[in-house]
């Protein structure tokens, strides 16, 4: 979706402001939100792409004015409600009113903690040979799905070169919408800065994205 989350190339957000000696969490609740997201994901309530989609669908003003973990919290709460794991009444009351529904991987308890510290595996067997090889020129499609996609707006319609092939991986566009993993070939595609930003762009800049095969046409 063409949301405010897709902010590559936007102006007006001001300077980057690094914080000296930044703590891992600024508030205690932030760590609880992180842990709940990781736990419920590991328990099978949602996949990583779905959780990203729920953050992207926050209203733009809410997205831009909420801190990072606040967005995580709002996305988590809405996702769990919509998927039937809890109700708005329960959230408002702060207590369960009915027993929980079954989780794909069961209750998240201490025995599962080590599992969340290992990165997920996204590689899948290839359903078909790769269409592109290293060095091929490709054009990022001019597509504007209203659902989840990982093709940022700033490259759409532009021509780049395939630099790396990462194998076949879970396709976020369908996985996020719970329409299956539909594995796709994944490539690093590199663009010239001036192709993206015009003649005033930095002539020494190259930008790459990781693009799934359905995002690309031969050029």
């Amino acid at each position, binding site marked *: 979706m063409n949301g405010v989350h*897709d*902010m*590559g*190339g*936007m*102006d007006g*957000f001001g300077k*980057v*402001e*690094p*914080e000296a000696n*930044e703590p*891992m969490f*600024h*508030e*205690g*609740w932030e*760590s*609880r939100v*992180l*842990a*709940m997201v990781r*736990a*419920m994901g590991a*328990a099978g*309530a949602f996949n990583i792409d779905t959780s990203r989609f729920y953050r992207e669908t926050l209203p733009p003003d809410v997205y831009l004015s909420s*801190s*990072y973990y606040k967005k995580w*919290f709002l996305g988590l709460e809405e996702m*769990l409600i919509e998927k039937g794991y809890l109700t708005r009444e*329960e*959230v408002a*009351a*702060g207590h369960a009113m009915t*027993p*929980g529904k079954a*989780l794909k991987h069961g*209750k*998240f308890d*201490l025995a599962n*903690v080590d599992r*969340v510290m*290992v*990165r997920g595996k*996204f*590689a899948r067997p290839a359903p078909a040979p790769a269409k592109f090889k290293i060095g091929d020129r490709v054009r990022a499609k001019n597509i504007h799905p209203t659902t989840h996609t990982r093709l940022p707006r*700033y490259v759409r319609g532009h021509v780049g070169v395939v630099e790396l092939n990462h194998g076949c*991986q879970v396709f*976020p566009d369908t996985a996020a919408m719970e329409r299956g993993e539909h594995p796709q070939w*994944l490539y*690093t595609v590199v663009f010239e*800065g001036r192709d993206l930003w015009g003649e005033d*762009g*930095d002539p*020494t*800049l*190259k*930008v790459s*994205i*990781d693009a799934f095969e359905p995002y690309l046409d031969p050029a």
Partner: protein
Amino acid sequence: MSHDHDHHHHDHDHSELSETELRVRALETVLTEKGYVEPAALDAIIQAYETKIGPHNGARVVAKAWTDASFKKALLEDGSKAIGTLGHVSRVGDHLVVVENTPKRHNMVVCTLCSCYPWEMLGLPPVWYKASPYRSRAVKDPRGVLADFGVSVPNDIEIRVWDSTAETRFLVLPMRPAGTEGWSEEQLAELVTRDSMIGTGFPKTPGAPS
């Protein structure tokens, strides 16, 4: 435990913070009562993030690459596989790509769409990495972003920005500082900063105040 951190209020006024805190507690209570999560398991996740991951992991990998040419070669060919051979830095997953800074090219990593970051190598990302100014500008005006960090890269050097739009994670292998000949891996690792592995900074130089 986790509620003992110092409170910084940033952009939020106190009433909003209190409301958020109450809502987060309410959600955790509901999840617990529904039988989805065990609070002690949430404590353990937080403890694991606080103790097991952090830029020290990435720094060890960089320092080893600076001292061991065959490891460096393997690292650049397949980051996940090479790091997997180091017993003490594991769990990096299958999709880590290490990109090398050279006298001709400076690499920077961003996630314009969300906050993708090599947690296992660098820990949880800093706020600035996840915030709008960095995400919006890194792909268009990376030299301006570097200036915000007080860093500049000569104008004849290519800047390569890696936008982490899939599950691949990128780690920058910075150039080894001059004046470190004969240093041990442990000494070198002390020079490797988090930002030097994101590409928004350089390693510390020998003798400079830390």
